[in-house]
C-alpha cells in the first residue's frame, strides 16, 4: 500500500510541530524516521495513525485522499501503530486483549479467538500463552501481542515508535526478522521511529530525517552514521572519550546483598565502589537494576520485614478487638505479653537478619547503610534519581523554582524564594533547560524535565544512583548531561546508573554489572566489550 503525505502541517499554539512535510512511502520497504527530541516525528506518526489531525495538508492512500480522523479509521485504512507505551490492558489476559476492539458477536467466543490468535502467532513465530495476564509479560511479548493483533486486523502499514527500548537482544533480533519478512515478502510498509542508529543500520532500507518540524533529508541505506548525525543535528558531533579520573577511597561496599525484583529475586550481589568510579547496570527492564539501587538507597525494605510488619498490625488489631470484648485479667496479661513480643520481635529480627543470618550488608562511607532510611543517607550525600519523571522524580503542578525550593534540605521553616530562584536560573543555565524558572514542570518537554531533575541533584553528592538518566533524550542532550555528570567525578563522586541503551553503558562505565534472569555478573574491564557481547550476557549466554 502506497502512503503519500502532502504538505502535512501541524501547529500547536506558536509551535510548528510539522511544517509542510511531503513524502511517499512505498510498499515493501522499511523506513526509518529519525530526528532529535521534539523534531516532530511522533506528531507526524500520530497524524498518520489518526490520533491527531493535521492543521493542513492531506494523506493519500494508493492515490486516493484518506480522511483519517481516529485510530480506528486508520486501522480500517490499513494503518496500524505500535505505541511506545503499550496500549493494552494489563489485568486482562492475552486472549482478552486480542479480542478487545474486534468485531463479532455479542457473546464472546473465546474458543474461536484463541484459535485465531494461536494461528497468527504461529505464522509470525511468536509464542504467547493466551491465558496469561498481560501484566506478567515482558515488554517484548506485549509488543508481539500488539503486532499479532494489528496484523490480524489486516494492517498493511505498520508504524513502530521506539520498539527496541526495553526488550532483550533476542527479542530484538526476532522482531527485526519478523519485520523484514513482513516488508520484503508480504509487501508491507514499515515505518520505524527511532533515535538509535544501530536499529536503522540493521533494519531499514530508507530513512528520512526531521529537524524542527521540517523534513531535512532522506537517504537510502547503507548510509554512514556520520551522515545520519549530520542530518539530524545539522553539525557533526565530536565524541571525546571521558577524561580519566584517579580512583579514590572506597565509597560503597556491598556484600552478599539479596534483592527482590519484580520478576526474579537475586542473591548475593557483591560490589566495591571507589570515588570517581562509574558502574553501569545492564539488563532488561525489571531484572532488578532499580530494586538494587533502591535497596542501596534504603528505599526498599528487605521483603521479609514487610511481612512481619503486616502480621504485627493484624495481631495488634486482634488484641484491641479482644480487649473490647472482654475485660478479664487473663486477656490483660495476654495483651501485655503480646505487646512485649511485638516490641521484641522486630528487635530480634533486626538482630538476626543483620548480624546473624547475614542476608547481606551495605556499607556506605565506612558505616552500615542497610536498614537505614533514605533521608539519613541523603544527608550523607547518597542520591537516588528515579526514571519516572512525573511519577516519582518531579511534582506535576509545581514550577521549576518551587522544585528547587523543595529540594532545599536546610532546617529553616520558611522558603527563601530568592535563593531558590537563583538556584533555578543557575540550574537552567548549566543544564541548558529550555524553560523559565516560573514554568510549571509538566509544561516542559520530557527531555527538559529530565534536565531539571538532574540539575536538582545536590552538589555535594558522594554517590549518585541514576535510573535511566538519559531515557528519552536524544544523542546531543544525552552527551551534554553525561559530560556534566562525569565532571563531578573529579570531586570524588561515584556513580551507579542503569540504562536500556547498551552503547551508553559501554561509553561511560568503568565497570558493568549485568543483570540477567536473577543472576548478576560483574564485568571488570568493559573496554573490550562489544554491544553484541553485552547483549548476549543480558540474554543469559555466558
Amino acid at each position: 500500500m502506497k502512503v503519500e503525505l502532502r504538505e502535512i502541517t501541524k501547529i500547536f499554539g506558536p509551535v510548528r510541530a510539522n511544517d509542510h512535510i511531503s513524502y511517499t512511502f512505498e510498499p515493501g520497504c522499511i523506513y526509518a524516521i529519525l530526528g532529535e527530541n521534539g523534531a516532530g516525528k511522533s506528531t507526524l506518526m500520530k497524524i498518520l495513525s489518526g490520533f491527531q489531525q493535521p492543521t493542513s495538508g492531506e494523506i493519500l492512500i494508493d492515490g486516493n485522499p484518506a480522511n483519517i480522523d481516529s485510530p480506528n479509521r486508520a486501522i480500517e485504512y490499513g494503518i496500524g501503530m505500535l505505541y511506545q507505551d503499550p496500549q493494552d490492558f494489563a489485568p486482562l489476559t492475552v486472549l482478552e486483549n486480542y479480542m478487545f476492539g474486534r468485531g463479532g458477536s455479542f457473546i464472546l467466543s473465546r474458543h474461536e479467538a484463541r484459535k485465531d490468535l494461536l494461528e497468527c502467532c504461529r505464522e509470525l513465530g511468536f509464542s504467547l500463552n493466551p491465558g496469561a495476564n498481560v501484566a506478567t509479560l515482558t515488554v517484548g511479548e506485549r509488543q508481539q501481542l500488539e503486532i499479532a493483533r494489528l496484523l490480524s486486523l489486516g494492517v498493511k502499514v505498520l508504524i513502530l515508535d521506539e520498539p527496541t527500548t526495553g526488550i532483550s537482544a533476542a527479542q530484538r533480533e526476532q522482531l527485526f526478522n519478523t519485520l523484514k519478512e513482513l516488508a520484503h515478502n508480504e509487501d508491507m510498509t514499515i515505518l520505524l521511529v527511532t533515535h538509535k542508529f544501530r536499529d536503522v543500520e540493521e533494519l531499514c532500507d530508507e530513512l528520512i530525517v526531521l529537524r524542527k518540524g521540517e523534513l531535512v533529508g532522506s537517504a537510502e541505506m547503507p548510509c554512514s552514521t556520520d551522515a545520519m548525525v549530520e542530518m539530524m543535528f545539522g553539525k557533526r558531533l565530536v565524541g571525546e572519550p571521558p577524561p580519566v579520573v584517579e580512583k579514590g577511597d572506597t565509597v560503597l561496599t556491598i556484600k552478599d546483598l539479596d534483592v527482590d525484583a519484580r520478576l526474579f529475586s537475586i542473591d548475593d550481589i557483591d560490589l566495591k565502589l571507589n570515588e570517581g568510579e562509574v558502574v553501569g547496570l545492564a539488563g532488561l527492564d525489571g531484572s532488578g537494576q532499580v530494586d538494587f539501587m533502591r535497596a542501596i538507597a534504603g528505599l526498599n525494605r528487605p521483603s521479609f520485614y514487610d511481612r512481619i510488619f503486616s502480621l504485627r498490625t493484624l495481631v495488634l488489631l486482634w488484641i484491641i478487638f479482644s480487649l473490647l470484648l472482654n475485660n478479664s485479667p487473663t486477656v490483660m496479661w495476654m495483651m501485655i505479653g503480646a505487646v512485649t513480643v511485638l516490641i521484641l520481635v522486630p528487635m530480634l529480627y533486626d538482630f538476626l537478619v543483620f548480624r546473624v543470618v547475614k542476608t547481606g550488608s551495605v556499607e556506605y562511607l565506612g558505616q552500615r547503610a542497610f536498614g537505614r532510611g533514605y533521608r539519613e543517607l541523603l544527608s550523607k550525600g547518597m542520591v537516588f534519581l528515579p526514571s519516572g519523571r512525573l511519577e516519582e522524580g518531579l511534582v506535576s503542578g509545581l514550577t521549576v523554582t518551587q522544585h528547587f525550593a523543595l529540594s532545599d534540605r536546610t532546617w529553616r521553616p520558611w522558603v527563601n524564594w530568592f535563593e531558590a530562584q537563583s538556584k533555578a536560573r543557575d540550574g537552567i543555565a548549566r543544564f541548558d533547560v529550555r524553560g523559565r524558572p516560573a514554568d510549571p514542570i509538566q509544561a516542559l518537554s520530557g527531555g527538559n524535565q529530565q534536565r531539571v531533575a538532574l540539575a536538582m541533584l545536590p552538589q555535594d553528592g558522594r554517590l549518585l544512583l541514576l535510573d535511566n538518566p538519559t531515557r528519552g533524550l536524544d544523542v546531543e542532550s544525552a552527551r551534554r548531561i553525561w559530560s556534566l555528570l562525569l565532571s563531578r567525578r573529579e570531586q570524588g563522586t561515584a556513580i551507579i546508573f542503569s540504562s536500556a541503551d547498551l552503547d551508553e553503558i559501554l561509553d561511560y562505565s568503568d565497570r558493568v554489572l549485568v543483570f540477567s534472569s536473577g543472576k548478576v555478573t560483574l564485568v571488570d574491564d568493559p573496554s573490550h566489550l562489544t554491544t553484541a557481547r553485552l547483549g548476549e550476557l543480558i540474554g543469559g549466554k555466558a
Partner: protein
Amino acid sequence: MDPILIRTLADIVRNGAPLLIAGLGEMITERAGVVNLSLDGTILLAAMAAFAVALETSSIGLGIGAAMLVGMLIALIIIASSVFLRLDQIAVGFVLTLLAADLSTFVGRDYANLPGQQVEIPYAPVPVLKDIEFLGIGEIFFQHNLLIYFSVVLLFVVWAFIYHTRPGLQLRGLGEHPQAAYVRGIRVQFWRFVYVAIGGALVGLAGATYSLSIRLGWKENLTIGNGWIALAIVIFGGWRPFRVAFGVYLIVGLRALALELQKEATLNIPVQIINMTPWVLMLLTLMFVSSGFAEWLLRLIPERARPFFQGALRANPPAALGTNFEKE
C-alpha cells in the same frame, strides 16, 4: 431445618437486595472508570421519590421509575461535570451526597411519617419453587417480591455481561486504560455516559427497594449510611460481582446475627460490638489484600490453583478510576 434459621436466611436475602443492587450499580460505574461517591444521598432521595410518586399516582411502576430517574440524573451530573467542566469526581460526588440527603428531607417533608399510608411492591411467590421443603429453599429464595428476585438475577446477569460478552470486555477496558480502548475504536466518553447512567439507575432502584419493600414508607434519613456501606462493599468485593455479593450477604448476615443475639438475655456482649464487627472485618480484609501478606500466601499456593485464588485474594481497582479521559 430450624424455622427461625430459615426465616433469618430469608430475611438476609430480602435485606441484602438493595445493597446488592446498589453495590452492583456502583461496581459497573467504577468499572467504567468513574467514581459515583453520591450513593448515600442518592439512595435517600430515590427512596423518597419512589414513595412520593407511588403514593400520589398509586402506581408502583411509576414510583420505581422515578427512583431510577433520580439515580440516573445524579450520576449523569457527576460524569458530565467531569467530562465537560473537568471537575473532580470525588469532590462533586461528595457534595452531591450531602445535597441529595438534605433535599430528600426538604422535598419529602409532606410525605414523612404517614402511618397507614403505605405502598408495597406486591408479594409474588414463585409458583412451584416456593414449596421446595429441602433446606427451606422455597422460603429462603422464592417467597419474596419481584425486586428481591431481580437483585439475585441481576448478580448473574452482571457477572455474565462483564466476563462473557463483548461489551462487557470493553467495559473492563474503559476503567483500566481508556486510551487503549480509544485506540481500538471504542467511543470512550459515550460508553462512560451509558454505563454511569445504568449504574446510577441501579442505585436509584436500591432506594426504591428500601421505601417500597423493606422499610415501607418514608421518614427522614430512612436509609442513611447504607450508601456508604455499598461503596465499601464494592472495594471489599474487589470490583468483582460475586465477591461484592459475598460482602453484601456477610454484612447483612452479621446484622441479622446482632439482632438475634440481642434477644438472648444470657449473652453479655454489648450489641454495639457485633454491629461494629462488619467494619472491623472489612478493615482487616482490606489490610490483608493490600499488604504483602496476600502475595506471600499466593506464592505458597500451587501454580495450577493460583489464578483462582488470585481472583479471591487480590483487589486491584480499575487503573483509570476517577480520572478524566483525554485523547492526549
